[in-house]
């Protein structure tokens, strides 16, 4: 059953169980599992939302804007590095 209880994994909410609104089906890379979303009762997730899954519970909703911002930051760094390396190469050649 795995060896890493501390694991938190992002999964997408596929559907909320009609009869048990604290249960949702999440998908992780093609794999589905029912998880408990009771800890998100203040702002329940909807299908399409992504959540962080920990020991069978959704612990938090993933904030897409924040994720995009983080990616942007990383891509910027990546791009500036590519530019720098390219500049370095050119300066080498010259």
């Amino acid at each position, binding site marked *: 059953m795995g060896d890493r209880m*501390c694991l938190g994994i992002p999964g997408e909410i596929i559907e909320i169980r009609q009869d048990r609104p604290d249960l949702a089906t999440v998908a992780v890379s093609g794999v589905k599992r029912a998880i408990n979303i009771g800890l998100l009762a203040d702002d329940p997730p909807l299908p399409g939302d992504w959540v*962080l899954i920990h*020991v069978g519970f959704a612990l938090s909703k*993933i904030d897409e804007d924040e994720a995009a911002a983080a990616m942007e930051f990383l891509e910027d760094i990546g791009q500036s590095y590519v530019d720098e390396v390219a500049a370095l190469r050119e300066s080498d050649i010259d």
Partner: protein
Amino acid sequence: MRFVDEFRDASTARALAAKISKLCEPGRHYKFMEVCGGHTHTIYKHGLEDYLPDNITLVHGPGCPVCVIPMGRVDDAIHIARQPGVLMTSFGDMMRVPGSDGNFFDSNAAGTNIRMVYSPLDSLKIARQHPDLHVVFMAIGFETTAPSTAMTVLRAAEEGIDNFSVFCNHVTIIPAIKAILDSPDLRLDGFLGPGHVSTVIGCRPYEFIARDHGKPVVVAGFEPLDILQSIYLLMRQLRQGRAEVENQYARVVPWDGNPVALRAINAVMEPRPYFEWRGLGFISHSAMRMRDRYAGLDAERRFDLPGVRVADPKACQCGEVLKGVLKPWECKVFGTACTPETPIGTCMVSPEGACAAYYNFGRFDRRRVREVSRA
């Protein structure tokens, strides 16, 4: 996998590494502690140290909930499991943690029935399916996991299930960090804050570190780029002379945490006056116990526990490793007497333990291998 693969990109890592290098002041050595064992695991599993300049050292902290369980509690758990009709359930991580007379697997070999579960809810399900057994859930974990235990207890109470109880070993992260900050033998330049704990408690509880101790804290995610970026953010604070709490993991961690989760913990549990941490000794208000209201679901009250304090093995230097004072390989028994097969300390057992992570993933001469890889 979304939110995973994009944070494992090697070319971005190279770029970040270059940025980090540039932030290093010549001749200065930097020491950052990743508080959380999940970070330690990521660092070694992805070979993240290969990206760090030699003058940045990552120091592994006390944030592995398996590692901090003292022997006496393992013995207590086995004692419970030995009672007739008891089925003990536990996360996989606990199965190999040594008690004074063997681990859970050994105990099973000698006759108990201790099973791994993925979730505390699975324990409760087993209890429903086996009314003839008493099912105990060995609850361990920081604030990340405590809400799941609490929700499970609430559900059991609601359903009136009485063949279920929780052996509560939940610990809290702040007292542990305080213990480390108070320890005289460690000089740290900053902290990688435990991202998953923070989904529950938020970022504010770390503010005292920045404010009172002048150390920057970056709450970090668990993909390797999260960690690398967090190191970058720490370096930037240092370079800029700041000491603040920053949230690298904002996609998952709300600044104020998860109030539902905090309410659930609070409804079911209350702080213990003190609790023993493996290697660290007794720390005040560092763990949770079940409230009186849920006494019926509390294994500690349902079973008569020996509760004997068992001294750590003499050779064990886990305390030093958990405080970041020693690197795993600096422990005298590391890799010889103490291996994942024959662990003396808990840090060698849990995949989030520093010794296990270093032994399983990092135990090779990085320089020599780099040459080989390039050949």
